[in-house]
């Protein structure tokens, strides 16, 4: 097909008309005619392809309806110019698409000579427009960055690449204006000391080399040198050929300084952390990611071992939830600098108390908790001890007073206040002299200060007075208190109120004095009375002994004399027993010595000789197993005598009396038994009265009820025990046991 060369040619050819219509139908451009009323009169199919509207829809409304509201004014203005000027105008505006979006179109328009019809041709400008917008964004981004950006490229391939673009940061960095830079070779910033080898090598490759970073010594416009970090990226054209490079420059001097500072400060921190006396740690949620040596040493681990373990492995189970919540709070941004005490576990499993200070930091760009730990186990233990001690001091009944070395009161406990009436506030700063009375002799205080001066405790009794003047007695223990270096700090007095005791003791002393006086008098009295009784009784006995009744014939007189005799004997016997009881009370005067039972029995029998003969008693004594022991001789004699006499007295009348005496030694226990075949007793009736004073169990004439009392007293005095077995009309057995 022959292309029309001019309008005139078209007019003359119907073939041409057909060709024009074909162009109208298939052109990729949007072709239209607009009438003087502003309506599309003809639209080609490209309108529907680009905007989505059918030709009917397009022609049914004035064209301005489809224009973006922001572009209406400009469009109308262009239209007016077109009508008035008649020239071809070019402009861009946005048209409404059927899907509701706007589409950029770039128009060429002119008006027909009749001034009624406008011929308008539009290109689809949407893509171009978007690209331009992106470019604008890139440009502003390049402008706003702090790095110096420069684009270099070859205008002609023979020459060195020249500068095509610089951003304002680049101007600032080098001190040149854009005008001074554009078109200049890229070596403008280099100087005598710049090593361009690497840069040129990179540029020479001239192919699909990837981006490269290098450092260059650069020169500013004023000659100042600086080290720049340069990032070079090739820019490829649509043919994949590298024509340009974009480079970014940043001054490394400052950066280096900062890095150096950073390194220095890190070094400082590290040495501080490692050499610190406190434990330092960084926690990254579940683990320790950094600990210093002190921290590790406190827990008996090496830092490496700690990094292997979980956070929970280091804390007492009761305390771990608290630790976890603190760590989580910090990591979630809560800013606290508080510290808390916690129980941590050492490698061996023992508990250490730690005081932890924590705060937030970054570790490898992640939030982390940094903290210090101080081992306060010893302090805790001391605190606990102190708490216990102070509780004791607060609760004890002893009044406690602490003074400084000059005797000024520093502390008193509640018991002190209760006792003396002085409160802590009243007592502090006072001298304990406020309690002093005349009743405490000066020598006591001298003695006390002497002992304390030699760093010894002193114990003694004071008579003091309360705040209300009332006197009280106290037993005091005063001790110096030293610190761990052996320096004396305080005196502590622990006092016990013994007023009541002193009073009681005084009363007791008086009572004892009184009692011993009366006892002494009583003793004297009893000796005198018994002596006074005894003298006439012995006379009566003497008279009876001398009385010769053979010369008396009167039977009544004989009976009377016989009665006198019997009464006298009985009186004497009672008197003898009473005297023995009195003497017995004074057993302090008796001494323990080894005695032989054989001898004792002999003496007892001698004393009782008459009776034994009279009653035809058969006696069987066996002392083979224990011939004697350590006893009070007179007591043992009395015991033998009493038992034998008792057996005789309470023998079954008209029946031979049999007495058996045995001794045996088992270990340290010496047993002595007296057995007879006499009247016996009903022990269930007699019970504990048996050994009582003046207890009689028989109607027997001779019974006075004192014998067994004496026996028991003697046995007890010799630290022995006595027991009895008896059956009526069968006999009685007494058993005595003594420790030897």
């Amino acid at each position: 097909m022959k292309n029309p060369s001019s309008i005139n040619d078209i007019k003359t050819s119907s073939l041409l008309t057909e060709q024009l219509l074909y162009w109208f139908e298939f052109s990729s451009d949007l072709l239209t005619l607009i009438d003087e009323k502003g309506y599309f009169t003809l639209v080609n199919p490209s309108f529907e392809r680009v905007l989505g509207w059918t030709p009917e829809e397009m022609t049914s409304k004035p064209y301005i309806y489809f224009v973006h509201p922001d572009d209406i004014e400009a469009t109308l203005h262009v239209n007016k110019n077109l009508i008035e000027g008649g020239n071809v105008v070019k402009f861009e505006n946005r048209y409404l698409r059927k899907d509701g979006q706007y589409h950029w179109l770039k128009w060429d328009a002119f008006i027909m000579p009749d001034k009624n019809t406008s011929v308008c041709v539009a290109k689809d400008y949407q893509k171009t427009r978007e690209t331009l917008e992106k470019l604008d964004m890139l440009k502003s981004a390049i402008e706003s960055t702090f790095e110096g950006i420069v684009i270099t490229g070859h205008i002609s391939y023979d020459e060195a690449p020249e500068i095509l673009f610089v951003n304002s940061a680049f101007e600032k960095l080098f001190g040149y204006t854009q005008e001074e830079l554009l078109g200049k070779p890229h070596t403008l910033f280099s100087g005598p000391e710049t090593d361009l080898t690497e840069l040129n090598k990179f540029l020479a490759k001239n192919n699909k080399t990837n981006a490269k970073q290098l450092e260059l010594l650069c020169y500013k416009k004023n000659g100042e040198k600086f080290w720049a970090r340069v990032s070079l990226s090739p820019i490829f054209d649509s043919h994949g050929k590298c024509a340009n490079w974009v480079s970014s420059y940043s001054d490394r001097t400052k950066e280096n300084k900062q890095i150096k500072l950073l390194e220095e400060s890190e070094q400082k921190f590290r040495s501080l952390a490692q050499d610190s006396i406190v434990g330092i740690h960084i926690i990254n949620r579940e683990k320790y990611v950094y600990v210093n040596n002190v921290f590790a040493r406190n827990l008996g681990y090496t830092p490496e071992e700690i990094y292997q373990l979980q956070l929970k492995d280091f804390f007492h189970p009761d305390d771990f939830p608290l630790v976890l919540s603190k760590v989580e709070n910090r990591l979630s941004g809560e800013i606290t600098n508080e510290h808390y005490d916690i129980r941590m576990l050492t490698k061996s499993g023992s508990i250490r108390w730690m005081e932890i200070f924590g705060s937030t930091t970054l570790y490898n760009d992640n939030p982390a908790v940094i903290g210090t730990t101080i081992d306060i186990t010893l302090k805790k233990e001391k605190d606990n001890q102190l708490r216990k001690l102070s509780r004791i001091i607060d609760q004890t009944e002893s009044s406690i007073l602490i003074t400084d070395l000059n005797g000024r009161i520093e502390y008193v406990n509640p018991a002190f206040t209760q006792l003396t009436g002085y409160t802590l506030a009243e007592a502090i700063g006072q001298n304990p002299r406020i309690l002093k009375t005349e009743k405490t002799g000066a020598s006591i205080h001298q003695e006390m200060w002497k002992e304390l001066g030699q760093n010894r405790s002193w114990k003694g009794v004071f008579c003091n007075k309360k705040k209300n003047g009332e006197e009280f007695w106290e037993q005091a223990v005063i001790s110096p208190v030293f610190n761990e270096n052996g320096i004396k700090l305080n005196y502590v007095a622990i006092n016990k109120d013994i007023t009541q005791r002193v009073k009681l003791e005084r009363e007791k002393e008086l009572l004892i004095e009184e009692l011993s006086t009366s006892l002494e008098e009583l003793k004297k009295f009893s000796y005198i009375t018994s002596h006074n009784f005894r003298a006439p009784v012995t006379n009566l006995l003497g008279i009876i002994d001398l009385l010769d009744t053979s010369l008396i014939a009167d039977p009544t007189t004989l009976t009377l004399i016989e009665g006198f005799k019997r009464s006298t004997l009985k009186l004497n016997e009672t008197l003898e027993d009473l005297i023995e009881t009195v003497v017995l009370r004074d057993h302090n005067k008796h001494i323990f010595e080894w005695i032989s039972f054989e001898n004792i029995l002999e003496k007892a029998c001698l004393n009782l000789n008459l009776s034994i003969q009279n009653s035809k008693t058969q006696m069987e004594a066996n002392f083979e197993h224990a011939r004697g022991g350590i006893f009070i001789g007179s007591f043992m004699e009395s015991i033998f005598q009493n038992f034998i006499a008792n057996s005789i007295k309470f023998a079954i009348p008209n029946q031979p009396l049999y007495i058996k005496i045995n001794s045996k030694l088992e270990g340290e226990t010496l047993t002595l038994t007296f057995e007879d075949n006499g009247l016996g007793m009903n022990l269930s009736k007699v019970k504990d009265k048996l050994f009582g004073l003046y207890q009689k169990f028989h109607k027997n004439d001779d019974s006075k009820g004192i014998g067994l009392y004496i026996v028991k007293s003697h046995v007890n005095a010799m630290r022995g025990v006595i027991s009895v077995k008896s059956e009526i009309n069968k006999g009685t057995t007494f058993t005595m046991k003594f420790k030897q």
Partner: protein
Amino acid sequence: MIKNVLLIDDDDVTLMICRLRLKKSNFCENVFTALNGEEAVQFLEDQLLLPLDKQHLPDLIFLDLNMPVMDGWTFMDIYESRFKILMPTHAKIDILSSTVDPMDHERAKLYDSVRGFISKPLTEINLSELKGIETSKKT
């Protein structure tokens, strides 16, 4: 046979009974009595002043302890210090007392001249024992 016995006791009934008892037991030839220590001292002094063949110095003294004027203790003190060496027969003292104070027994032991401690009354047994001792002493 024992020749002279001196009885010192403030109770004249006791003296009477003792005298009878000694006589009945045929214990000695002569019995002299004194109502207290002072009288006894006087008696001894008097006897010492007599010519030897008239002297009746006691071979044995029965002494009570509790007496008025001068008690038995004081008498023993004087006897030990003044008379003991002058007594050719080395007369011993037997305390004859109704005392019940055990301290008296202990105290009496401290005197050399005291031989025994007899609780009243003086019995046939006491006398035969004493007689035995005296006889063995002589032979």
